[in-house]
C-alpha cells in the first residue's frame, strides 16, 4: 500500500484529484480555484490537468457559486464548492439553508444534491477580520445538511473523498491553521474499507476524563493530553469528525468510564457544538457524571483582532484548566 508523508493541504489536494479522476461528473467551483489553485493552493494544478470545465473559476459571488452548483447538481453533476474563507460563506447562506439543505426533502427523495461545500475555517493564523471564523454551528443546526471536519492529513484525504462520493450535501470544514501540519497518509485504502465518514473516533485512549474536539482543536486536545500525562492524568481524546449528525456513541461509552467530559472548540460557546454535546451527554450519562460537561471555547464576542486572538482561542492551558475544574467539582 502506498503511503506518503503529506501536509493536510496536500492531502486534500490529492483527495480532490482522486475524485476528479474517479468520476467525470465531479467539478470544482469557486473563486481563484483555477490558475491560482485557491488562496491556500488546495486545488493547485487541478485546472491545468482537468480543464476549465472541471475546475471552474467563478464570478465573485458566493450565492452564485452555491446557487449554480444546485443547478449543476440537478443536471447530474457533483459540485465541490470552495468558499474562500469562513467569513465569506454568509452571502450563500440562503442558498445553502433554504435550497441545498431542503431539495431532497422537498422532492420526497426524488432529487439529490451531492454537493460538498469546502470551508477553510478557524483562527490562529493572524488574519484580518472575517478570515478566522468558526461558523459550523450555523450549519449543524440546519436539518438536511451534514457537517464534518478533518483533524489529520489522513482524515483530510479520506474524508474529502468520502464526502464527494456521498449523495448527502456536506459542509466540509478544513482547519486552515493545520494545512501545513504533516502526517503519514495511506493513499490506496478503498473508501469502502475506510472508517465511515460520519463516525467519531478515539484518537488517544485514556481513563480519567474525556476530551472532545474536532478540526483544529484535535491537535490542541492531544497536546493537552500529553501534558496531563506528565502530571499523571490519563485523558481520553475523541475526534468528533462528524458534527452533524454527531456520532456520540463512543462519547457516551467513554464518559460512562471517565465520569468527566470537556468539549473544546474555537467557535463561541453560546449555542455552539459544545452546548449540544453537553446536553446529550448529560441526558445519556446522567448518573455517571462526576461533574457537569465543561466547555472550552471561543468567547461570545466577535472574533477579535489578530494580536489578541491567542487569548480568545482555546489552548492547552485552558483545556487543562477545565480538566482541573472538572476534577475539583
Amino acid at each position, binding site marked *: 500500500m502506498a503511503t506518503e508523508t503529506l501536509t493536510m493541504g496536500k492531502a486534500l489536494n490529492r483527495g480532490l484529484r482522486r475524485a476528479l479522476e474517479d468520476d467525470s461528473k465531479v467539478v470544482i467551483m469557486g473563486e481563484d480555484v483555477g490558475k491560482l489553485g485557491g488562496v491556500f493552493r488546495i486545488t493547485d494544478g487541478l485546472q491545468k490537468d482537468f480543464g476549465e470545465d472541471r475546475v471552474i473559476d467563478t464570478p465573485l459571488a458566493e450565492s452564485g457559486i452555491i446557487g449554480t452548483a444546485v443547478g449543476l447538481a440537478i443536471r447530474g453533476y457533483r459540485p465541490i464548492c470552495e468558499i474562500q474563507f469562513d467569513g465569506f460563506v454568509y452571502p450563500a447562506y440562503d442558498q445553502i439553508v433554504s435550497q441545498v439543505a431542503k431539495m431532497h426533502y*422537498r422532492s420526497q427523495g426524488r432529487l439529490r444534491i451531492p454537493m460538498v461545500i469546502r470551508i477553510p475555517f478557524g483562527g490562529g493564523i493572524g488574519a484580518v477580520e472575517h478570515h478566522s471564523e468558526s461558523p459550523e454551528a450555523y450549519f449543524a443546526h440546519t436539518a438536511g445538511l451534514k457537517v464534518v471536519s478533518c483533524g489529520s492529513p489522513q482524515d483530510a484525504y479520506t474524508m474529502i473523498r468520502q464526502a464527494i462520493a456521498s449523495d448527502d450535501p456536506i459542509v466540509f470544514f478544513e482547519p486552515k491553521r493545520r494545512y501545513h501540519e504533516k502526517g503519514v497518509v495511506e493513499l490506496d485504502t478503498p473508501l469502502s474499507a475506510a472508517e465511515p465518514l460520519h463516525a467519531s473516533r478515539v484518537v488517544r485512549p485514556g481513563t480519567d476524563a474525556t476530551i472532545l474536539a474536532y478540526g483544529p482543536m484535535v491537535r490542541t486536545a492531544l497536546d493537552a493530553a500529553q501534558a496531563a500525562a506528565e502530571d499523571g492524568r490519563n485523558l481520553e481524546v475523541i475526534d468528533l469528525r462528524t458534527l452533524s449528525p454527531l456520532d456520540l456513541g463512543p462519547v457516551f461509552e467513554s464518559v460512562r468510564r471517565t465520569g468527566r467530559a470537556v468539549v473544546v472548540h474555537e467557535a463561541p460557546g453560546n449555542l455552539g457544538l459544545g452546548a449540544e454535546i453537553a446536553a446529550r451527554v448529560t441526558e445519556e450519562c446522567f448518573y455517571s457524571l462526576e461533574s457537569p460537561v465543561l466547555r472550552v471555547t471561543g468567547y461570545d464576542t466577535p472574533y477579535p483582532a489578530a494580536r489578541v486572538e491567542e487569548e480568545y482561542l482555546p489552548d492547552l492551558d485552558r483545556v487543562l484548566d477545565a480538566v482541573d475544574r472538572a476534577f475539583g467539582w
Partner: protein
Amino acid sequence: MAKGESKVGAARPPAPGPSDGAESRIPNADVPAGGFVQLLTPDGDHVDSVTAADGTTYSVDFTDEEYRGLYRDMVTVRRLDAEATALQRQGELGIWASLLGQEAAQVGSGRALRTQDMAFPTYREHGVLYCRGIDPIMPFGLFRGVDQGAWDPNEFKVNMYTIVIGAQTLHATGYAMGINMDGKTGTDDGEAVIAYFGDGASSQGDVNEAFIWSAVFNAPMVFFCQNNQYAISEPLERQTRIPLYQRAAGFGFPGVRVDGNDVLASYAVTRHALDRARNGEGPTLVEAYTYRMGAHTTTDDPTRYRIASEVESWKAKDPIARFRAFLGKQTLADEAFFAEVDAQANEVALNLRERVLEMPDPKPLSLFDNVYPNGSPHLDAQRDQMAQYLDSFEGSAH
C-alpha cells in the same frame, strides 16, 4: 391560419427600444412607454410580423388546430385556476397563487419550450406546467399542504416550485452551464433553459448574479420575467426606474419586452430566445408585460393598494378574450367550439377537485423521510421516539 394570411390593419406597435426612463408604466395606455412586441391587438387583430429595434423579426406560423390549441390551453388553465381559488376558499387548500391574467404569458412561453428544454418556475407557473403535459394536480400538494413539491425535476423537465424569491434563477443558470459542459448547445436541437421570475424578483441579488453568471458562461438561458406590475402590494416603481427588459443590456445580453397578454407574441419571442440559447448564442431576458388580475395569493387584499379602475383598464386587454376575438374574426372557431372548450375545461377542473379532495394527508412519521439520501442514525432515533410516543396514545395508527 398560416403565416402571411392575416393582413389585419392593426397599427404596428412601437418597437421595443430605450424609453426616456422617466415613466415605465402607463396603466391606461395599451402600449407601455418603450413599446413591446405585439402580434395580436386587444381587439383580436393579428399582425403578421413585427420587427424589434434590434432588427429581430417576430412572427408565428401555427396551423389552425394549433391556434385552437392555444385557446384551449388558456381557457383550461384559467378554469383550473378558478377551481383552485374556490378550493382554497372552501378550506381545501392552505393558499393559492392565482395566474389570472397571465395565461398568455404562461401558455405562450410554455408552448415555446421544446421537449428537451428545462423550466425553472416560481410558484405561479401552473400554466407552464400544464403546457409541459403535466398532470394539473402536481402543484396542488404544495398548496394543500400535503407535500412541498415532491416531484422529480428531471422527470418532467420542470423544477419544483421555488418560493424563495429569485433563488431558482441561479439553479437554472447552473443547469444551463451543465448543458454547455455536456456539449448540448450549438445546434438546432440543443437544449435550453427557461427561468421564470417576477418583476419584484428582479431586485434580488440572486437574480442579478444569475444574469452575470449566464453572461460570463454564455449559458443557454431565457430569463422570462412576468412583469405583472406588482410584487404583492408594491408597484413596479419600487423595483426599477426604467423598463425591466433594459436590465439585460447592462449585463451584455439582449432584453426584449413582449406583450404578455398576447399569446402569439409571447410564444414567438420566447421561441426565438430559446432557439438562440440552444444554438449557443447565450442568454436573453424576456419581459412579459402583463397584469395580475387577481390577488397576490388568496390571503392578499389588493383593494388596499390598487384602484378598481386600473384593474378595469386591464380587463380590456384580457389575453383570452382577445384570442377568442381573433379566432372568431378569422373564423378559426365558432360558438360550438368555445362551448366545447369551456365544457371540457370544466370537466378537467371538476376532476381535479375530486382528486385534490382525495389527496391523502401525510403520515406523522413521514416527516422523517428523505431528510438525507443516506439517512441519519440521529433521525432514526428521533423517529423511533416519536413512534413510541404516538403508540402511547390509545388507538393511534401512524
